[in-house]
């Protein structure tokens, strides 16, 4: 019987990670737009860094942070919790690697929002929160949607950081990319082919869905 658990592990992790990244990335983009000068470039650089760092480096840092003796890991273990080598670690890894994609898409989209609309909203007495939620976000939505798609596909394909902090526990932390790697290395080409095909299908579908949304919006 073919074990389908990597599919559900991957999909669940990618969906939750994408949601988290959507919130964090969009807020970070809004925050950076409100900053000026050197501070803005610094925060921008920090937010973009995971994009260029090797996933193993990210995994290493996550391990240091969330490991048994890491500051966050120690805090969690006081509550009897641990993230490393659990399903949550796959979510965490996906969040960290896909965050820059969401952040950059959102920042680009928010920069494009007509500033007169934003000022008009303020003259109408709208609070900053409403200006953001009711004026900026809807206007930036196509770009943000693109960011969501990119983040989702990136989360789905995450391998390096996941391997380091979540490991390869079948039925628990084994995601599709992990299944592909270990099937290939053990010579099980049939399993590898199935997962590769499924992965391509999923990526194709999510990109297609986003371009369908973009096209529908333009009409």
């Amino acid at each position: 019987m073919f074990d389908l658990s990597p599919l559900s592990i991957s999909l669940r992790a990618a969906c939750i990670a994408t949601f988290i990244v959507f919130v964090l990335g969009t807020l970070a983009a809004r925050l950076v737009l409100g900053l000026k000068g050197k501070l803005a470039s610094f925060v921008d650089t920090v937010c973009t860094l995971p994009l260029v760092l090797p996933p193993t480096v990210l995994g290493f840092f996550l391990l240091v942070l969330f490991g048994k003796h890491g500051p966050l890991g120690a805090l969690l273990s006081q509550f009897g919790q641990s993230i490393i080598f659990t399903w949550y670690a796959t979510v965490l890894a996906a969040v960290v690697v896909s965050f820059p994609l969401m952040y950059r898409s959102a920042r680009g989209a928010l920069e494009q929002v007509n500033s007169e609309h934003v000022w008009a909203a303020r003259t109408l007495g709208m609070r900053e929160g409403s200006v953001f939620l009711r004026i900026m976000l809807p206007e930036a939505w196509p770009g943000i949607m693109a960011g969501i798609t990119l983040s989702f596909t990136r989360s789905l394909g995450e391998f390096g950081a996941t391997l380091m902090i979540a490991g390869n526990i079948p039925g628990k932390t084994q995601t599709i990319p992990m299944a592909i790697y270990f099937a290939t290395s053990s010579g099980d080409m049939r399993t590898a082919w199935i997962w590769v095909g499924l992965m391509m299908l999923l990526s194709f579908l999510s990109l297609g869905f986003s371009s369908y949304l973009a096209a529908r919006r333009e009409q």
Partner: protein
Amino acid sequence: MSLSIDAQLSIAKKTHSEPFTLDVSFTVGNGEILGLLGPSGCGKSMTLKCIAGIINPDKGKVQLGGVALFDGEKGISLPTRQRRVGYLFQSYALFPHMTVAANICCGMTRMPRESKEQYRHRCREELRVYLELLHMEQFAQSYPRHLSGGQQQRVALARLLASRPDAILLDEPFSALDDELKDSIDQELKATLLKTQCPVVFVSHNAQEIQRYCSRTLHLVHGHLRQAGKSGCQQR
């Protein structure tokens, strides 16, 4: 409630070696429509932006009904949201993803001690009033992109009025309209503006437009006021 501004501001422009300096000082009374006339780039819009808090002057004061909106000396600068200044942008700045009705309701705020139900009811009532006032009833559910320039202008004006401002700033309100439309809108707009009993600043590069609306005109040239007086008797 009168509006007064006395502001100085200098901005370095990339294209010029010398910075652009703005130095304006005037007062607009209740129910008065003051014209601010000048060629493009003379600082008319910048003056409005200083009043609305979109730009902060380097020094000076902006007061509305005795309340300091900006005071360089005391370091006061109210955020735009709290200034209660209605701003009609040249492009009208209607929110493209909202219907006409939603656009107009944007500026309505819930009163203290008003229940959600009462607030909704009042919004509906006021929406009806403003749509009727500006003859836009049949367009309530339309999106701005489906409206003509004149209709967009009226929606922007309705939205502005619905936010109950204490002062009104009009930035080239007719530049996006053709001449015929201008004449048809003219009298109604003027009557509507006067009815609010707000101080109104009307910015334009067109002397005729200003004459039709304003009881007093200021000429702004290179960021400085040239002359003041009754527009009727002061012909260049």
